[in-house]
């Protein structure tokens, strides 16, 4: 399949080496974790450097390293530019992170916010959306791990998928959010340096002019600025990215964990620095036509081009870059989803009087449980990465407006917020099947907005912002 494929022994050696390194690092960082705040929110005092790196590294994921090249290969220039629009999620979340920290200085999860702001029904719908999205993302990351190893080495899909899961569960379990953030910093540097080197080699050995000529001759649609499906994809991806970030506890837990005054700067800087990355990774995929690469599935095009350009040593290099990208997102998702289940599930329904020590133990067990569930769901390779993620787009985009109005407008009530999330999701899913994946998020967002505006016009409420301060013991 690949000219410069790693042997099974070398691939295993890299995995074991990286696994030991990250797990020992995780243990070292987590050795002083004493409370649930230390473990789940890194002590709520994360500085700007780590905060910026973790926002970037978490958002550089299988999407950026595998799906952005896939979309450039399928949709051309709009595929890569459209993917880069996902940076708007981080940029627009910057002021919201500051607002979240100021409204809920002792808050713990996005579920806390929805429950206090809108009540139990909205909370129920929101939890279904959050958990479905979290599991979809975890499964897509696990599948990406398997695809990566299958494309770059002689190991099979299942070995790669299980290896990345075990390593991420290991260091997240031992170090909590502190380990996740610190490893994200190192992984961000590795990923960025790797992407720049791969792009430079691509420009130097193949050339932008040659790539342009090849694409223009064999698949001119990829350079067409009026490619209808690609333009729809661009708009859809903006709303998908915003929905992913606005609702997910991955980002809310960071807003709570960053030091006061850091969140806004970190999300803004992280978003601006992330913006050009999918264009670079997408461009590399366009070289596939010039290099005569025909990937067995479209989401393998990025690693295959990079490995071909860089040869046998390059395959090791590409392996490390993509592995870091996957790990930096999977660890964040494991940590944030376990927080959500611990606080909004265990503490709320099973043991409301649980102390910090008990919550810490439960949180760790949930990290292991999530790893096991993800592994089982990844066993059959059920869909391509893009298809799986775009299916989740209908869910997350429906939560955008209830979150925005919930943070800034006291008029939206729980009844209409619930309807916005439920009807938005139904609309998005219907159009996903009737029209295509590229309209799911956009249509869900529009329907959700219509419901929110109807609520503000027909039955406006008057939420008291002090309610959040009165509930500030949510983490205790």
């Amino acid at each position, binding site marked *: 399949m690949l000219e410069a494929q790693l042997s099974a022994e070398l691939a295993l050696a890299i995995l074991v080496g990286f696994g030991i390194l990250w797990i020992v690092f995780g243990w070292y960082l987590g050795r002083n974790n004493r409370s649930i705040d230390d473990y789940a929110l*890194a*002590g709520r*005092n*994360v*500085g*700007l*450097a*780590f905060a*910026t*790196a973790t926002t*970037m590294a978490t958002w550089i994921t299988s999407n950026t390293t595998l799906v952005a090249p896939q979309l450039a290969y399928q949709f051309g*220039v709009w595929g890569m*530019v459209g993917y*880069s629009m996902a940076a708007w999620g981080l940029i627009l979340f910057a002021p919201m992170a500051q607002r979240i920290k100021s409204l809920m200085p002792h808050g713990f999860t996005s579920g806390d916010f929805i429950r206090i702001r809108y009540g139990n029904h909205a909370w129920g719908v929101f939890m279904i959306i959050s958990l479905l999205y979290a599991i979809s993302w975890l499964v897509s990351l696990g599948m990406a791990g398997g695809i990566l190893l299958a494309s770059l080495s002689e190991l099979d899909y299942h070995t790669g998928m299980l290896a990345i899961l075990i390593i991420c569960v290991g260091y997240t379990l031992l170090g909590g959010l*502190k380990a996740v953030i610190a490893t994200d*910093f190192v992984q*961000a*540097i590795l990923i*960025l*340096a790797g*992407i*720049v080197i791969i*792009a*430079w080699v691509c*420009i130097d050995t193949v050339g*932008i*002019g040659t*790539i*342009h*000529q090849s694409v*223009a001759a064999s698949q*001119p649609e990829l*350079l*067409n*600025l*009026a490619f209808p499906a690609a333009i729809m994809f661009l708009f859809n991806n903006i709303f998908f990215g915003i929905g992913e970030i606005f609702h997910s506890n991955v980002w809310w837990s960071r807003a709570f964990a960053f*030091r006061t005054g850091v969140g806004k700067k970190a999300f803004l*800087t992280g978003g601006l*620095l992330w*913006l*050009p*990355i999918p*264009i*670079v990774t997408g*461009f590399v995929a366009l070289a596939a036509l010039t290099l005569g690469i025909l990937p067995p599935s479209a989401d393998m095009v990025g690693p295959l081009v990079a490995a071909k350009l860089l040869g046998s040593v390059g395959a090791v290099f590409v392996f490390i870059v993509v592995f870091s990208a996957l790990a930096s997102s999977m660890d964040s998702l494991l940590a944030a989803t376990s927080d959500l289940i611990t606080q909004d599930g265990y503490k709320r329904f099973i043991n409301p009087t649980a102390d910090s020590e008990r919550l810490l133990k439960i949180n760790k067990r949930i990290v292991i449980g999530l790893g096991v569930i993800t592994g089982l769901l990844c066993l059959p390779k059920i869909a391509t990465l893009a298809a799986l993620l775009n299916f989740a787009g209908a869910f997350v985009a429906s939560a955008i407006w209830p979150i925005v109005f919930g943070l800034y407008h006291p008029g939206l009530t729980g009844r209409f917020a619930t309807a916005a999330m439920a009807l938005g999701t139904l609309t998005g899913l219907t159009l996903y099947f009737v029209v295509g994946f590229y309209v799911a998020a956009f249509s869900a967002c529009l329907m959700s907005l219509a419901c929110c505006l109807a609520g503000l016009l027909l039955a406006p409420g008057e939420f008291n912002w002090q309610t959040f301060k009165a509930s500030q013991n949510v983490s205790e």
Partner: protein
Amino acid sequence: MYLSESLLTLLVITACLGTALAPIILLLLYKRDLKDKSLW
């Protein structure tokens, strides 16, 4: 309407420069936080 070679070059080179700048900014921020003892 098709993207010309010069526009593709401009897009890709700008994106590469932006990506190359990112790790430098992160390391400078790290150096500053380390000096101010404000990493965590």
